[in-house]
């Protein structure tokens, strides 16, 4: 049992970044919960006057949800760590190793589901629906969807950008699923329970026979990669793009269409939980598109490591190298960004998104890409505490700002100020990144697994 606990601790706090995310999650959940429980009733729930502005109320209401998401993603080390241990000699060596590893996974998902269900029940506190029932339903569905989510995270961790996008699509679907079961209380829980049981049985079986499957899987993967090509390089691109992985932006750009369509499907008849269907609620479409805008930028985090090979092959100084890398990434980011623009406007209008939000949303999404691009370029050595906190804070700020921008009640001056502020932050990041690249020390960047595999 102490092994299970110790494993779970490692899942949530193993890396600096995840420890920060988990900590933020716990704080937000605790803070948001107490805010919702002990603060005077908020306008959106009762129609009574409140001392908070609508924007502040939105933030407070969303805080537990944001915290819960942080807790969920805080354990995202679990799939990778579990796989590593499962395919090693340790599963056989450690006393009751397999059983304890499997138990740790189940307990983690259960814990995360419990937190999610408790958070969800909060929103039904002052409604006539019994909390116990809400918790039970939420728990069942969460168990199922978070299991799927972690499987998706596992998949994303092992694949290149196109796989990551497909994974993102599945993740969004997994997160959106519970809403269906919430909205219709009469839906039976038998389905989810059976699905859960089957899923975990399959996982356990796969897990327990992993050492036997691993060499077979490796061989299959090798032959697959051989046939379909490991690099996205299709010839005619420049060497710099090949090295950085930006040679072919189309898979990434078009791959976004899948999660966009899936999210659009789920948002068709979306009724925000806890709110009456009125205009005061932020439209979630911008939120989703902003998430996607961040993905293409996040690829730059490998830029520093991969540029090591460029240093040896070219005549560029570090400043020139930074400029070229920046240009290469922006050139390839145009494509996914363009797709996002089209999706934002087209699907946004279909979903009856307020025009103001659409208009400002375009700029907002660009700022999102810029922020994540330069954040990625800032990673020139191992991710330390400061950078981790900065990254998480920036992303949270971006997400919260996206909700403000999407709320019809927000004045346009606020929106402009927000976007300007975020754009300025992006520029600051750029300056910081440029300065770091001037002193880039490749000894500090260890080659990541993808470059090693490509080499």
């Amino acid at each position: 049992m102490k092994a299970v606990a110790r494993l779970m601790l490692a899942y949530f706090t193993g890396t600096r970044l995840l420890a920060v995310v988990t900590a933020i999650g716990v704080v937000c959940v605790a803070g948001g919960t107490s805010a919702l429980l002990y603060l005077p009733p908020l306008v959106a729930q009762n129609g009574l006057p409140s001392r908070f502005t609508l924007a502040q109320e939105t933030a407070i209401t969303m805080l537990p949800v944001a915290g819960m998401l942080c807790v969920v993603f805080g354990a995202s080390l679990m799939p990778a760590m579990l796989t590593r241990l499962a395919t090693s000699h340790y599963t056989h060596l450690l006393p009751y190793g397999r059983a304890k590893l499997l138990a740790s996974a189940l307990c983690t998902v259960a814990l995360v589901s419990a937190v999610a269900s408790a958070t969800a029940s909060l929103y039904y506190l002052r409604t006539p629906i019994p909390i116990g029932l809400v918790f039970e339903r939420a728990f069942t569905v969460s168990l199922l969807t978070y299991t799927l989510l972690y499987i998706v995270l596992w998949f994303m961790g092992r694949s290149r950008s196109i796989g990551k996008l497909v994974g993102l699509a599945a993740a969004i679907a997994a997160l959106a699923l519970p809403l269906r079961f919430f909205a219709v209380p009469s839906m039976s829980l038998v389905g989810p329970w059976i699905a859960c049981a089957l899923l975990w049985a399959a996982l356990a079986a796969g897990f327990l026979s992993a050492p036997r499957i691993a060499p077979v899987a490796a061989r299959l993967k090798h032959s697959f990669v051989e046939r379909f090509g490991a690099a996205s390089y299709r010839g005619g691109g420049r060497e710099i793009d090949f090295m950085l992985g930006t040679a072919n932006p189309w898979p990434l750009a078009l791959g976004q269409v899948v999660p966009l369509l899936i999210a659009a499907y789920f948002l068709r008849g979306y009724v925000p939980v806890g709110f009456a269907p009125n205009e005061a609620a932020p439209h979630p479409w911008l939120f989703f598109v902003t998430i996607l805008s961040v993905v293409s930028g996040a690829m730059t985090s490998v830029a520093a490591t991969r540029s090591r090979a460029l240093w040896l092959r070219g005549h560029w100084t570090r400043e020139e190298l930074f400029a070229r890398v920046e240009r290469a990434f922006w050139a390839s980011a145009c494509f996914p960004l363009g797709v996002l623009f089209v999706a934002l406007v087209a699907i946004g209008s279909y979903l009856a998104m307020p025009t103001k939000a659409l208009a400002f949303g375009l700029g907002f999404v660009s700022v999102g890409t810029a922020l994540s691009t330069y954040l990625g370029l800032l990673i020139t050595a191992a991710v330390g505490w400061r950078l981790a906190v900065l990254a998480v804070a920036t992303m949270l700020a971006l997400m919260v700002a996206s909700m403000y921008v999407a709320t019809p009640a927000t004045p346009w001056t606020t929106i402009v100020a927000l976007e300007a502020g975020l754009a300025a932050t992006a520029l600051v990041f750029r300056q910081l990144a440029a300065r770091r690249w001037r002193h880039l020390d490749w000894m500090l960047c260890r080659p990541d697994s993808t470059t090693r595999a490509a080499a």
Partner: protein
Amino acid sequence: MSVPYAAARRLGKAFYGKTVLEDVSFSVEPGDIVGVLGKNGAGKTTLLELMLGFSPPTAGTVEVFGHPSFRLPGAEKARLGFVPQQDELVNQLTAADQIGVIASFYPRWDDELVNALSRTWEVDLRERIKGMSVGQRQKLSILLALGHRPDLLILDEPVASLDPVARRQFLEQIIDVAADGRRAVVFSSHIVSDVERLANKIWIVKDHRLYWQGDFDSLKDSIVRLHIRSARALPDALAVPNALSSQRNGSTATVVVRDWSVELHGELAARLAAEVEVEPLTLEDIFLELHR
């Protein structure tokens, strides 16, 4: 007679029709330090993994602590330690976290030993595994296998990436482990000089079999190099029994033989009417002669 820590009888393993090992028999007693030698691809790792119970044998049996190794009960696993050839550490964790996770599985973990060794071996436990050099990672892997004080410690090329100082520290630790005579160590290595110092039993894996399985001292007595010097030219056919290789040069000859004994000495000298000088070989020489 106590139960040997590990024992195999006519053990065999084949992958997809290809034989990797056949007819392997051995036993490991408490206090043994067994050195496993063999060319790359000879089957050393397979042999160790079979002993570990990581894969089932396709022929014969292999037992650890009296149980079939493939079905070793959970409680007995705490007496077993293993260091794989390629480290299996979780890159994202710090060394301390990795140790903490592994330690939590065992009922007894010697924190003091691990901390003391990490200081002597200069492994910074606060460092992230991702940023460690290959040598550091190997040292950490060894630490992970020592912490629960296993009775049987199996190591697959544990010092391949270590500098001579680290290697000597490792050797000393192995001696420490085996010194009380109650624990056993089995390790494979290409660094023959280390094996020569440490091992009291040698297993030589050659052509899918154990060419030699036994006492190191007997091995040295058995495989020797003979320098034959005669006043006259030697006969064409020397007919030295169990010769592994020979070189002739008129009235002198050098022959490497196996299964040598003192009685043969006098016999040979008399038959060839020559001086026969016996040169003992180092383990490396023995290994090279066997693979000539």
